[in-house]
């Protein structure tokens, strides 16, 4: 049981290049999330998905796209990378949250992206 895995762990891009970050979970979770973490700003939600085939915008969606073609995978795409997208990206997943659930999110180890 690997939990949440992310690929790649590190990446350096030049401005204008594109790339896709892959997140995979083996816990049969319905909900998946992409966050970015910047110093002094905590975790900010980029996009999320409440099930296979669905996606929704979070707090900071501009410049990113996502897809959830399979329940276990959630992809984050950068079409034209900018230096402002230099950050550490975390994927997370959880069961469908409800009022009574603990709603624990399980996080991957992160992808450190630098855009030059």
């Amino acid at each position, binding site marked *: 049981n690997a939990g949440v895995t992310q690929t790649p762990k590190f990446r350096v891009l030049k401005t204008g290049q594109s790339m896709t970050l892959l997140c995979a979970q083996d816990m049969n979770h319905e909900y998946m999330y992409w966050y970015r973490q910047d110093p002094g*700003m*905590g*975790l900010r939600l980029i996009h999320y998905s409440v099930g296979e085939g669905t996606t929704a915008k*979070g707090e900071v969606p501009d410049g990113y796209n996502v897809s959830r073609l399979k329940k276990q995978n959630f992809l984050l795409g950068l079409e034209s990378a900018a230096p402002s997208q230099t950050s550490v990206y975390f994927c997370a997943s959880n069961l469908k949250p409800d009022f009574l659930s*603990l*709603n624990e999110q399980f*996080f991957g180890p992160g992808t450190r992206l630098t855009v030059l």
Partner: protein
Amino acid sequence: TQLLEQSPQFLSIQEGENLTVYCNSSSVFSSLQWYRQEPGEGPVLLVTVVTGGEVKKLKRLTFQFGDARKDSSLHITAAQPGDTGLYLCAGQVEKLTFGTGTRLTIIP
């Protein structure tokens, strides 16, 4: 957007001392979580508090949810080097909103 401010942003103390970190908001949350994150890893859940005024203990860590469910505190007794890390609070309304984080360093 609900904003969660954590204080202090950085804290460095000697092993054996006590400390408290705070998580404050003007919004009411249905529940509040505390996570700890170590370098190179993702956050890991420590505790969830749901009821206003609720207090939960996890060994030397004590978590309290404010009566109005707008704020929370984390108190660590007799801090140890293993407590070093980034502590994040996260408030739940429809989605989870994370705080700005407190980076704690315990000096042996």
